[in-house]
């Protein structure tokens, strides 16, 4: 089998606060293959978002290694790090805070193209419109301010920005939790179709196994900064082995088994 797209091993992160050491991550290891959706699930405070921040190099790990596309990610700094950025992108949880409040939709999508020289000055407006169309938005939104469009539209813009640089991996950090249910289903469909077209891998971070069950190929269940179990999504949902996995499966809303009258 070919080497995985992303290989994380022994990742640890501690925070020191008021003399006490808080362990956010303790020896987390997992792999993500090409064109795969790998989900990290777990209750809040289990360290999922810390994994995302370390992968994107928004914070530095205390121990462990991250290999992405064969490169040692943690060894990259400055210009080399910025040159790698196009390959690894992220979509944030809250579409209201993910963009500069003064920006327009057009500027948000133009920035990655300009920074990495992906299109000439004259071609960029056209490229921005193409990106908007790819995520199912009207090219007419280009001139709108970010605060003028809805949360669902903003999350589509966030996805458009993430795919602008043609990444091989996108980290989705609770990217659907701030959206209402109908919008969530549309965005999920969009993510799946982008994966089929472009072979993008997703690291899908969520506390909601119900959403994970719909998109993930493989799942890692996290608890208290460590991975409790890893496996095929179907297998974990059908028969979780760890206590936290069982608790998360039990919390899944199920349409197949309606709440009985006696239980009310």
């Amino acid at each position, binding site marked *: 089998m070919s080497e995985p797209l992303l290989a994380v091993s022994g990742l640890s992160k501690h925070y020191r606060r008021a003399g006490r050491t808080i362990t956010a991550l303790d020896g987390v290891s997992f792999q993500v293959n090409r064109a795969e959706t790998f989900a990290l699930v777990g209750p809040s405070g289990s360290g999922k978002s810390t994994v995302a*921040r370390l992968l*994107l*190099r*928004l914070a530095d790990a205390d121990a462990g290694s991250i290999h992405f596309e064969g490169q040692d990610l943690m060894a990259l700094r400055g210009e080399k790090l*910025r*040159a790698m*950025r*196009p390959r690894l*992108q*992220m979509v*944030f*949880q*809250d579409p209201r*805070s*993910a*963009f*500069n*409040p*003064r920006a327009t939709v057009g500027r948000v999508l133009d*920035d*990655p193209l300009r*920074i*990495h020289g992906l299109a000439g000055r004259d071609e960029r407006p056209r490229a921005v419109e193409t990106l908007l169309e790819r995520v199912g938005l009207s090219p007419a939104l280009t001139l709108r301010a970010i605060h003028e469009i809805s949360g669902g539209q903003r999350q589509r813009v966030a996805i458009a*920005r993430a795919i*602008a*640089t043609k990444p091989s991996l996108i980290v989705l950090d609770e990217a659907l939790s701030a959206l209402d249910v109908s919008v969530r289903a549309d965005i999920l469909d969009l993510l799946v179709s982008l994966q089929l077209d472009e072979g993008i891998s997703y690291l899908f971070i969520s506390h909601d196994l119900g959403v994970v069950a719909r998109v993930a190929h493989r799942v890692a269940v996290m608890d208290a900064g460590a991975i409790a179990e890893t496996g095929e999504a179907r297998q974990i949902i059908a028969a979780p082995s760890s206590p936290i996995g069982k608790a998360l499966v039990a919390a899944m809303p199920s349409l197949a088994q309606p709440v009985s009258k006696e239980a009310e």
Partner: protein
Amino acid sequence: MIALRRFLRTPEAVAGALILAALLAMALSAPWFFPRDPQSIAGPALLRPFQDWTLPLGTDRLGRDVMAGLFHGARASLAVGLAAAAGAILIGAVVGTLAGFAGGLLDEILMRITDAFQTVPGFLLALAFVSVAGPSLATVIVAITLGAWTGPARIARAEVLSIRERDYVAGARVIGMHPLEIAFREILPNALPPVLALSSVIVAAAILTEAALSFLGLGDPNRVTWGGMIAEGRAVLRSAPYLSIIPGVALVLTVLGVYLAGEGLVETSATRRMNA
């Protein structure tokens, strides 16, 4: 449009704006109404106000037109106030943004420099600078700026410290934006409103500092300034108090006008932000 209407509904703000408009009109119209050098002799010495309608506010010890001095002095006050405030906010915003965004050693160095400037009283600093560099309008502006940029720098740094933790700054790093572009294009514009709120205080303080320097004889000797006129009148304070009172009142009204208009602007922008 709505902001303008709200501004006009505040009586203090309107009063401030009217005073500033009058001051601006005086400064701009000075060369038309009083084309002669305001430092030239226009009539008999120590003519009292309202005696001669060609010299409505009278003349000083050397027979110079007080009204002409008042109009031309408005130019110096406005120029110094606006230029020094603009300089102070520009320097403060850049220093504060760099310190807050870079953190670590650069933050430490920049903030210790800010401390050093802040511990020296602004007026003493200006006094020392003008005595060394020589009195001219430009050195007076630089001198006042030197003492005024620390406040904006501290406020800008505090704002930047809170903004740099936001998701959109992380997002800018994720797309590979250069750190300098993040600092000055993503963070600084969003950190600016509270810094700009300081501007009316700085303009008012700068006008007063300029007047004080001129009063001490350290203003530009080739320009009429209100501070210089007050100093001139001091010699004849008992016999001709109007020579000190007239420019003094102009100074008080100007500072009051700047304050009121500035407060009004801050109020309206604050309510606008709350509504947004």
